[in-house]
């Protein structure tokens, strides 16, 4: 059975040794964090562009291929029946019911600073609807046929089917998404290489200590641990620095973008990452650091 108090104490040693190791070569650490931050900044910029492009697409309804407008007096059970039928179609990924109140809220959000124009207008003037989301790559022929079929239902007042321009917009979004994914992979590898080389330097500088630790019975985790912690800290700090710089840049550029592209961004969709997205970004940096340091220490720091 594992001796947990001793394991925790050994973990405490590993962490404190990692920080002492980093303090022994502060310039190397600084350089590694800065270089990682530059790479992460590139990735963050692409990801932010993608996030905002998605937001714009959502605000403009580009991401909803079929919108089914319902009669005001449509009974709930018939609406639910129609939604159920649509959800049963394999190409349909989800069906979302939008009430007049929801529609009004969205409209107000879409108008951004001009939302005061809606004062005095009752939500009831807007119809309730079903937004039908489809799988990526669903053909426009299928979408048109689906629209025609749905029109025949008694509860349906009108059907709006996304046109060819939304196809193009979707394709563009898709491309930006792929670019973000490609950038994430490239940057991930670049950051891993940076962390790898820094940790290799640390392994080389501390090779005597590694040899001694192995001789006195240090487990692989005990010997390798400080290097792994070092890599994680480098990656996480690099990502945090990149996000800080990105936020500063975003905050500076945002007013110019919103002024220059007022039509596009009237919806007020231009936004920075949410706190949970920021946390994911830092965790991604930590993961890249972990993989880089593991690769660097793994081969050389074995029993």
């Amino acid at each position: 059975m594992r001796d947990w108090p001793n394991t925790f104490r050994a973990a405490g040693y590993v962490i404190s040794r990692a920080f002492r190791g980093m303090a022994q070569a502060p310039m190397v650490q600084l350089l590694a964090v800065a270089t990682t931050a530059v790479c992460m900044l590139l990735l963050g910029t692409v990801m932010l562009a993608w996030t905002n492009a998605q937001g714009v697409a959502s605000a403009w309804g580009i991401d909803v291929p079929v919108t089914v407008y319902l009669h005001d007096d449509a009974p709930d059970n018939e609406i639910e029946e129609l939604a159920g039928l649509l959800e049963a179609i394999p190409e349909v990924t989800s069906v979302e019911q939008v009430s007049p109140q929801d529609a009004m809220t969205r409209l107000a959000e879409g108008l951004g600073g001009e939302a005061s124009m809606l004062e005095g207008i009752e939500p009831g003037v807007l119809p309730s609807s079903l937004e039908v989301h489809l799988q990526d790559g669903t053909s426009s022929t299928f979408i048109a046929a689906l629209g025609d079929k749905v029109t025949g239902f008694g509860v349906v007042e009108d059907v709006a089917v996304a046109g060819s321009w939304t196809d193009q917009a979707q394709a563009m979004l898709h491309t930006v998404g792929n670019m973000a994914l490609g950038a994430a992979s490239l940057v991930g590898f670049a950051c891993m290489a940076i962390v790898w080389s820094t940790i290799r330097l640390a392994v080389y500088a501390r090779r005597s200590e590694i040899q001694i630790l192995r001789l006195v019975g240090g487990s692989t985790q005990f010997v390798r641990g400080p290097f792994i912690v070092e890599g994680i800290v480098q990656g996480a700090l690099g990502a945090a620095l990149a996000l800080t710089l990105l936020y500063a840049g975003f905050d500076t550029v945002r007013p110019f973008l919103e002024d220059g592209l007022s039509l596009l961004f009237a919806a007020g969709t231009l936004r920075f990452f949410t706190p949970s997205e920021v946390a994911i970004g830092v965790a991604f940096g930590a993961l890249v650091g972990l993989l880089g340091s593991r690769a660097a220490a793994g081969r050389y720091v074995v029993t």
Partner: protein
Amino acid sequence: MFSGLATMPILEFSSVTMTYGRGRAKTEALRDVSFSVPEGAFSVLVGPSGAGKSTLLKLVLAMERPVEGTIQVADRDIHRLRKHSIPYLRRNVGAVFQDFKLLPDATALENVALALQVLGLPRREVRARASKALEQVELEPGTKRSVSRMSGGEQQRVAIARALSGEPAILLADEPTGNLDPRLSREILEVLARINRNGTTVMLATHDPIVREAGVITHELGLEGGRLVSDSLAEVDAVQAVDLEEDTNPVLTGGLPVGAVA
């Protein structure tokens, strides 16, 4: 000459063969080596350079694996030890080397403490045990000097203290006096003899004549060209023993007296 100690073996080699390299570059370091070291023995491996002494010690530390044969340390088969179990073996086998293998910028206490931190012991216990180990080799635990500023003899004492701190079943020493002058060599032997008298089995690889002459050896293994050429419990001859600093030197007085074993 003696036939053997009446105690259980702490280390046992059975038909161990060890080679380095492959094909034409294959070199046989040990060939069909079998012996056992009784618990509490002061065992010495003698032989010229390249005889296989260091290889043998590396096998005990699981730094190398034999191509044939079995090795047992304290009733544990180590020739088929899994990688993750090797550190646990090393915590039970203290090792001392010719080049000390110390952290030069750390103090004696820090160097010894390293072996105890590996065990995850509480800080207070690490300090207490490291201090005790240093006192055992007659070094001041509180010294702030880094080991790089110590003499060779002091550095080797620190290395011995580190090896002892984990209370190992057996202490291995590979040419521990190889880098030391005769006076310091005698000091180190004195320390090792005292450790042995306290019950720790010591196995020492050397070709330093001072060791053989010091009268502390209870078991001698002779290696030549990778083969075991002699295996005997050596006679401790006080007349042949090198005259250490004075007659009351514990190395001389601490050696196993003639006739003590059957």
